[in-house]
């Protein structure tokens, strides 16, 4: 037996021992074959005599690693292969919209301060009345008189700037000196009356806000808020007054947060302010546009809060993914679950806002909405929101003329960057054209007018690329949703992408082709390819290590050594 085993190739012919061996099943034979080819890798004669491993073939190793991966890939392909055979529908309209602001466009918008910043109302007034009863009373007659006189001065002073304190404003030195004077007088009164009075803290905060000092305003309004929250009202009037205090303090806090560009906190504070205002006027006129009066200690126009909230929202959306209802109603604010942020398309919300928000007699809000509509290419909306400038300030009128210029309704808008304005005008025209096409159920590549001069030659290309990728992804997702229920519509939508292959991104066009002709997305195919490749790679690594172990176990180094020993 020993002699048989070590003879060169003697093991190959049939032996009596072999006939005695139990017959091996098909599975064992196959396993033997696979392991022989993949692990051993030598030819039969060499392997039977356990010969040298040097001329070992790796063919079996590659096959054993690749075949399972290829089979997995083919099986997945066969499983997911469902070409879309339905006849494409005729499209009457495309229910998609182009993005309102692409990154390239945002750069242009950033050049025009009015567009970038919006028009803040930021209108917070001094108290109209100094209470002589209740928690906030000033019962000392002498001090009451002094305080009433000072607040009267402050009120008159505030009217010179329209009571406005837009976030981030920088005041001149004379203005600041006047405010410092008022602060000194207030401090003197505070020294006599004592600390912890909401009326004093509120006016300190108001003065700081007017001076553009958000960091100083914030703790003062916080103080007012804490006093208002801590105090127990004794009657309905007291309750209303405390709510009014909370509304104004939250508004002040929101403006301070906006000055720090902390849009999330600003919106939360504006919401809290609106909520308190809604509570304060439970029997008031309605959701928006009502005012808190002297009965609430401080006169607060909720339109101003809503306008500022809208601007914070628009600016916050430009910076990060801030999600909030565009203009919440009192009912939404009062019920906590509805107040929770809803995820939605900012553009769609803006369109709903154009239709729903009452702008009568509110030029600032109207101007803000006009700017937004102009940037979205909604020329009709700009026209509809138009107001006459009888009771509007100069900057509001300028905003309106800018919006009309962008929308192409006017030609002149004074005081803004001309090149940026013409860029925006061209883009607005392109968007209007695109919107009309989509409404008519067709799509073609936007073309730049040869007479147009772009401030940056690459701007048009960048805008087109961004619009193309956004449109393509929307159309593809719509088509994917429609595949089950309405394959004709899905086929038509895929064809829209394929017809626009000249300007749509190549990945989207390939994806549309894959989905139309194979029924699977390109991503799925690539994932399956990656998984199959990973399977093969893992098998390859395992088999290679196994081969090494095999060689280490069975290679006879003594034999090799003896063959190559110098003395023979």
């Amino acid at each position, binding site marked *: *037996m*020993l*002699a*048989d*085993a*070590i*003879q*060169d190739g003697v*093991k190959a012919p049939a032996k009596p*021992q*072999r006939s005695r*061996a139990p017959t091996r099943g098909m599975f*064992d034979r196959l*396993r*033997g*074959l696979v*392991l*022989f080819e993949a*692990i*051993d890798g030598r030819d039969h004669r060499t*392997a*039977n*005599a*356990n*010969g040298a491993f040097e001329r070992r073939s790796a063919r079996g190793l590659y096959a054993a690693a690749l075949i399972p991966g290829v089979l997995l890939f083919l099986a997945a392909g066969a499983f997911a292969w469902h070409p879309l055979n339905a006849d494409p529908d005729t499209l009457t309209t495309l229910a998609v919209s182009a993005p309102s602001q692409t990154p390239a466009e945002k750069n242009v918008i950033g050049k025009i301060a009015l567009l970038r910043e919006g028009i803040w109302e930021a209108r917070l007034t001094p108290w109209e009345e100094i209470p002589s009863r209740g928690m906030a009373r000033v019962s000392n007659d002498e001090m009451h008189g002094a305080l009433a006189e000072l607040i009267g001065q402050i009120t008159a002073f505030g009217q010179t700037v329209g009571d406005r304190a837009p976030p981030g404003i920088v005041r001149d030195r004379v203005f600041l000196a006047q405010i410092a004077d008022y602060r000194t007088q207030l401090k003197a009164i505070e020294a006599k009356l004592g600390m912890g009075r909401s009326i004093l803290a509120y006016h300190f905060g108001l003065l700081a806000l007017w001076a553009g000092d958000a960091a100083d305003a914030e703790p003062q309004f916080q103080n007012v808020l804490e006093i208002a929250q801590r105090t127990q009202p004794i009657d309905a009037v007291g309750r209303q007054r405390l709510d009014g205090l909370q509304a104004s303090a939250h508004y002040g806090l929101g403006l301070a947060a906006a000055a720090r560009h902390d849009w999330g906190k600003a919106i939360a504070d504006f919401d809290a302010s609106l909520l308190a205002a809604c509570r304060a006027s439970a029997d008031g006129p309605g959701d928006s546009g009502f005012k808190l009066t002297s009965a609430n200690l401080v006169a607060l126009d909720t339109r101003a809060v809503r306008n500022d909230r809208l601007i914070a929202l628009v600016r916050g959306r430009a910076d990060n993914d801030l999600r909030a209802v565009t203009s919440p109603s009192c009912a939404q604010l009062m019920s906590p679950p509805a107040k929770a942020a809803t995820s939605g398309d900012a553009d769609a919300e803006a369109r709903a806002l154009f239709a729903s928000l009452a702008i009568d007699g509110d030029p600032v809000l109207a101007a803000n909405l006009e700017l937004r509509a102009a940037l979205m290419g909604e020329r009709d909306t700009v026209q509809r929101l138009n107001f006459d400038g009888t009771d509007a300030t100069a900057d509001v009128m300028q905003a309106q003329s800018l919006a009309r210029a962008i929308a192409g309704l006017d030609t002149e808008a004074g005081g803004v960057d001309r090149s940026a304005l013409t860029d925006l005008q061209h883009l607005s025209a392109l968007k209007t054209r695109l919107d009309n096409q989509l409404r008519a159920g067709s799509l073609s590549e936007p073309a730049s007018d040869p007479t147009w001069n772009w401030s940056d030659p690459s701007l048009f290309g960048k805008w087109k690329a961004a619009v193309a990728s956004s449109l393509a992804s929307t159309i593809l997702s719509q088509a994917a949703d429609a595949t089950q229920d309405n394959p004709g519509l899905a086929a038509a939508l895929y064809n829209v992408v394929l017809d626009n292959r000249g300007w749509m991104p190549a990945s989207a066009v390939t994806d549309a082709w894959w989905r139309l002709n194979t029924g699977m997305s390109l991503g799925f195919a690539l994932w399956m390819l990656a998984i199959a490749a990973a399977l093969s790679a893992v098998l390859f690594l*395992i088999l290679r*290590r*196994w081969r*090494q*172990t*095999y060689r*280490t*176990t*069975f290679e*006879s*180094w*003594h*034999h*090799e*050594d*003896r063959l*190559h*020993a*110098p*003395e023979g």
Partner: protein
Amino acid sequence: MGERGEKTGLAGGATMPRAEDVFGNAPAYRRDTVLATTTMDSDESQNLRDLLNLCKQSNRPPIILLFGFSYSGKTALALRLQDIFHSRGYGVQPAVSPKGPAERTSKIQPYFFSHPRRPNDAFVLVDLPGERFSRAKEANFSDAVAKETLELMAAADAYLLLLEADKTLYLDELRATGAIGDFEAKDYQEVVATMVQFAKLDWQLARKLGRHGDIEGAAKAIVDMKPDERFRELTRGARASRKPVMLGLSIADRMHDNMVALETGVIKKRLESRGDTRDLTDDERKQVRQIASNFDRDPLLLINMRQQKLMAQVASSFRYFRADFLTSFAGLPPNYTGEVNLNLYPPRGIERNFDWLRSAAQRARGGRFKTFARKNWMFHPVVQALDWLPSLRETSLALGARAAWDEALRHAR
């Protein structure tokens, strides 16, 4: 000039060679063990104490235990390794020297191999005579000497088991032809049986080491076990030890020299049993020469066929093992103690086999984290879980792959 075996002039003769001619005038193994003293001399005890102190350090060099009975070529192998590692820039402490007949006792001798610039590559080669283990077994692992042997086994990171190639593979043929006597053959059978017990005991030690953590505790637990429990078969589902094991079929040149004679005898005997008294034909002679020239092609299969019990035990006790023939010095007369020419027949085979054992020992021993975790009982579950994990380097994988197509190996198993 033909095969090496013919050079002895023994092959062509009608009578088979006697044991003295073939293997030299080696004394029976038992004679050595009986003569060996049970008390250690002071030199050895100092060596052992140093070694056992070293074993307790967590960041110590790997210990490779060279286990074999007298005349299996342990010292010759150590001498050859010293030569190999000298040429690689290593220093050996103490220097290996051939032993005279008077020194052939059951003495445990550690050799410290270290490199001056690569401290991490150091290792300790410990010469553990088989007689020492036999004696410990006979004393039922109760005396201090036996306990030290156990501690050494528990601390070892790899084993190099040396067996004389010819007796391991051709014991029946040698006895049948009268080359060795019945007594000596029985003795050698006992040597192999001791090897089997050694492998079994290592598994028990590994288990106790896992439970008790420290080496001394494991040795004590083995000492406290009942004798029949000590060499019990592996429990079902238990994992084998991670210690790499090299099964060395030593003095392969002696076997090769006598192989033609032995194989001719085998064929002649086969002819005689058929009532044929003719001489070998040319074809048969050619076949014999072919066998002799390829004798070392498949050592693992050969030992699997001839020493099934030993292989089965090694395969179930250890996860990483290898078998190969070893020839430390070719062409030297038996029991030669004089000066040897180390340049003669540079054995790359020994070098590669030992390098495999050393790297496998370092791998099994693990890195900094494992040595740290071994010392802290809190990490023992982690260490055990990691030890339990299968590896793609395990020899059973290779055996399985070969058994799937190789009928010879399948039948041997």
